């Protein structure tokens, strides 16, 4: 057995080993782009305001209120203090992400199941991690849709990492394992995805994860990929679909903006599935 001191000594030595980073090209890229990045000037010195004496603070606040009141009254009565003819703002048509036509994304012949998703908007990235892992993730990474064969749940999401549970190959095996995760989980409901029978459940965020041993809450491990935790808000929805004998796990995590949520729903509704080698 090692001691913490052993580990710290070895760790320190390892971190100080030679490495070959060269920051020059990063530096050049930064300096080349300075003209495109304006500096942010503090427009309202909040901290200075808080540091003022109460009398000064009151005077500044009163003056601000008066200015707002004068402008408000002027607008309300149709008169304008600063300019006799304020331009009337008119709506300008802009191309929003949601207006862009969805682009079909086919996961290719090597993927474990034939699947196509119509990717909505332009703020989504497509990830093909392996022939059993792929999905669409919003630029903010707060919303995503993922398709895989299954996951390995942890018995104790709040404990330090330990080998997760192995799960059998069937839909029921996976559903049972997911339902056993000690987290808020909805009842399992029978449904369908693209006409294939599916079972659905929703995981809600735990109230807190501060009590977890290392501050991490891990629900499951993707097929030997990274741990998945439920964040402090939002929910994770899963569907386990039986595509003519191929088990497909679809996971939707939605902590994004209303637009991202709407696009996520559209993409989920657009999923087309078929056994591998067939057209979805």
């Amino acid at each position, binding site marked *: 057995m090692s*001691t913490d001191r052993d580990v710290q000594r070895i*760790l320190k030595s390892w971190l100080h080993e030679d490495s070959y980073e060269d920051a020059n090209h990063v530096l050049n890229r930064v300096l080349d782009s300075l003209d495109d990045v304006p500096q942010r000037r*503090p427009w309202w010195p909040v901290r200075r305001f808080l540091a003022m004496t109460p009398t000064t603070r009151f005077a500044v606040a009163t003056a601000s209120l008066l200015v707002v009141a004068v402008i408000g009254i002027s607008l309300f009565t149709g008169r304008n203090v600063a300019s006799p003819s304020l331009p009337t703002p008119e709506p300008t048509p802009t191309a929003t992400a949601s207006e862009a036509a969805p682009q079909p994304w086919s996961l290719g012949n090597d993927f474990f199941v034939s699947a196509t998703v119509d990717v909505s908007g332009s703020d989504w990235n497509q*990830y093909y991690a392996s022939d059993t892992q792929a999905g669409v993730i919003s630029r903010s990474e707060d919303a995503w849709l993922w398709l895989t064969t299954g996951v390995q749940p942890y018995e104790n999401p709040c404990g330090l990492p330990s080998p997760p549970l192995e799960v059998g190959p069937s839909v029921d095996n996976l559903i049972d394992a997911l339902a056993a995760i000690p987290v808020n989980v909805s009842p399992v409901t029978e449904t369908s995805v693209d006409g294939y029978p599916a079972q659905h459940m929703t995981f809600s965020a735990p109230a807190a994860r501060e009590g977890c041993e290392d501050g991490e809450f891990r629900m499951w491990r993707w097929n030997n990929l990274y741990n998945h935790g439920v964040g402090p808000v939002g929910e994770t929805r899963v569907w386990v679909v039986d595509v003519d004998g191929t088990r497909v796990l679809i996971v939707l995590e939605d902590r994004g903006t209303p637009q991202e949520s709407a696009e996520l729903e559209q993409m989920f509704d657009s999923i087309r599935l078929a056994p591998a080698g067939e057209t979805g």
Partner: protein
Amino acid sequence: MDTELVARAQNGDKEAFAELADAIAQRFLATSHRILRDINLAEDATQQALLAIWRDLPQLRDPAHFEAWSYRLLVRACYAEGRHQRRWAPNLRVLPTETAATSRPLDAVVDRDQLERGFRRLSLNHRTVVVLHHYLDLPLDRIAEALGIPVGTAASRLHYAVRQLRAALDADARPATREVAQ
């Protein structure tokens, strides 16, 4: 750090910023590389952090706090890059079998690969504290200032990181291992 240089850069002096960036870029890249364990992500994090420093520098009230403030921006950039890596980068790893085995002294078995595997299993929060403390030699109070967390939290993260790494190294030190099947 030269506070006069910082003050000049705050006022939009690009030559002053270039000098400032030149002084910190190498250290930033080395630090982010050690946190993220990926040179491409580290370069992106360093670039984002330097640009964020330029952009937000006028909002830094006291140039004397530049170092802690700039580390905070670097760590934020690392977290932003690391979230991407954390969720999606493949992390196939060898797990110990359940068979009982006698442990050997750590020094006898630990190697770079084991350290790499163990370190990658740490969360970004934990890696960051470890790197700031054991690589940059920052004391806990300065780490806390840089990360905007209480000193106790910094100490706790360091403690758990070492404990977790120790557990991982001890587990790896067991002779029999098997690859986890999908």
